[in-house]
């Protein structure tokens, strides 16, 4: 390392900037916990696979909403596109190999994301919100209309998925394969997103979110960047949808509805947006609470969720991770003074 570089990183701020992409020890924790879950709770692996798909879905939204600041309420459009791609390929026994199916799901979702992004991302604010909402509703109605192919409201049940690598079969009763397969897909996608975030491209997305005018002023191709980001985000959401269709062996219209779009929005903001791990924390907290509370006390769950969202919007703008970070900073500041 040259002398100039070492003096450049002497300043704590500069040091933080040059090292922030490096792997920290705690970044292995989610994966260790996920593997531990596999051995500790063999009865809950089906739920676990669902949770992993939700994490991936929230991660895809984080890229668009948390990093690029594209406020969308229609992200389920891409989840549904991916789910129906995998579902229809498997239901009509055209293509059942899981990994290539996922790639096809990503491709279909990316195409829809690219085409819609190309026109939608000209707008901002409420208009953009409405347009994403309408695009999703449009796709849902289209899936409903094409009843002959999509099964309409009842969806496509009993999807037959070929074994992963031709060896590991999807067993509907024991979700071991589904869980590990989902974990693998999530890991690959996460590494991709993490790399993207710390790349110059990712930095420019943050710039667009923070100060659109200035990014225009320094000559950044803002709209092209946004469209690319939206397309990638759509592809990841498509993979999440495909994963969920494979793990559950069915797909229906709920993959495309407002409930799902609102859920992933809530999950991300609950965990904390624009910070990679928010998707993990939010999905775990939300899904665990929903899984164990919602079935016993559905009304209380809805009330509690509503109160929680209002509290987060009013007091904790950065979700659970934001609260954790604030507490940690206060703690470490106190430790320094004493």
């Amino acid at each position: 390392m040259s002398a100039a570089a070492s003096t450049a990183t002497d300043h704590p701020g500069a040091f933080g900037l040059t090292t922030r992409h490096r792997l920290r020890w705690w970044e292995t924790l989610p994966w260790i916990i996920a593997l531990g879950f596999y051995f500790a709770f063999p009865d809950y692996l089906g739920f676990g696979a669902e949770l992993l798909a939700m994490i991936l879905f929230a991660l895809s939204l984080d890229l668009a909403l948390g990093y690029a600041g594209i406020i969308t309420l229609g992200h389920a459009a891409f989840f549904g596109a991916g789910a129906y791609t995998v579902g229809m390929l498997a239901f009509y026994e055209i293509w059942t190999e899981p990994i290539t199916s996922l790639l096809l799901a990503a491709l279909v979702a990316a195409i829809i994301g690219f085409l819609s992004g190309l026109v939608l991302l000209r707008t901002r604010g409420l208009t953009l919100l409405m347009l994403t909402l309408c695009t999703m509703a449009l796709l849902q109605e289209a899936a409903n209309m094409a009843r002959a192919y999509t099964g309409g409201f009842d969806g496509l049940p009993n999807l037959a998925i070929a074994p992963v690598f031709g060896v590991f079969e999807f067993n509907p009763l024991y979700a071991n394969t589904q869980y590990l397969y989902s974990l693998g897909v999530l890991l690959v996608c996460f590494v991709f997103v993490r790399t993207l975030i710390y790349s110059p491209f990712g930095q420019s997305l943050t710039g667009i979110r923070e100060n659109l005018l200035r990014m225009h002023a320094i000559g950044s191709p803002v709209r092209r960047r946004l469209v690319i980001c939206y397309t990638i985000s759509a592809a990841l959401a498509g993979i999440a949808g495909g994963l969920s269709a494979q793990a559950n062996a069915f797909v229906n219209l709920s993959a495309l509805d407002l409930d799902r779009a609102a859920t992933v929005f809530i999950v991300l903001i609950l965990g904390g947006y624009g910070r990679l791990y928010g998707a993990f924390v939010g999905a775990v907290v939300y899904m665990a609470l929903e899984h164990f509370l919602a079935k016993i006390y559905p009304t209380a769950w809805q009330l509690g969720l509503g109160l929680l969202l209002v509290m987060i919007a009013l007091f904790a703008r950065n979700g659970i991770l934001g609260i954790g970070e604030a507490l940690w900073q206060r703690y470490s500041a106190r430790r320094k003074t004493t």
Partner: protein
Amino acid sequence: MDFAANIAGILLGGLSAGTVLFIVSVGLSVTMGLMGFVNLAHGAFAMFGGYVIVLSMNRAHFGFAAALALGFVATAAISVVLERTLYRRLYRASELDQVLFTIGLIFIFIAGAIIVVGPESQTLQLPPELRGQINLGFLQYRTYSIFLIVIGFLIALGISLAFERTRIGAQIRATVDNRRMAESLGINVDRLFTITFAFGSGMAGIGGGLGAEFLGLDPQYALKYLVYFLIAVSVGGLGSAIGVYYASLILGVLDFVLKLYLPKGGTIFIYALTILLLLWRPQGLSGKKET
């Protein structure tokens, strides 16, 4: 003759549905135009008002007019309380927080409705003079639909007159056009907003009650029709009552026709048209603000 009567029947059915949409959405348009606040919980206010109206008639045996008045006052009151305590903290927050906050409110209202009233759908008992058919000269039509259309027209007329002719209307127009300038001129935007918010929510409450006859009224109401309210507002244009009136009527007629002739998925055209229109005019049919 039969054909013309058919067309007239379809038009009237669509117009009455559109009228309800207008009464619910008009407040949303004005408050969004004034403050730029993305209030997804507006449908929840409509639901709240609907419950007050329907329950006060079914259980407390109020008259129709008295129930509507009570619905307006109760919804306006609860919205003012929420606005003063919670909404105002988020005026300067990002749209993200506003969306999150109002989604939270929707859930609270839905859960509240289930706990207090129960999950089953409530039915509106129309007063005897509004039941049955009325003779319009060239065809017989449902009295209630005609009543709705007339009421909606009067409300639209009243609001647009208030917008054009009254002091507070001028203040609202000024604030929608340029909020900072309006504030500099000494308009108390904060108070203006509270008043319009209360009025708009009260109107939504009335709309919830009037529409309960054919939209139904159950706890999921707040979420079920949200997209329609938002389409009416964004197509009509933020801060424009008349724009929302036209947009709602068009939407109502279109929806009625499509449901009649394309019962399976005809709404797809509504979404497609909305997307095209918003791409062509992001500010809506009669919105002035450049975004």
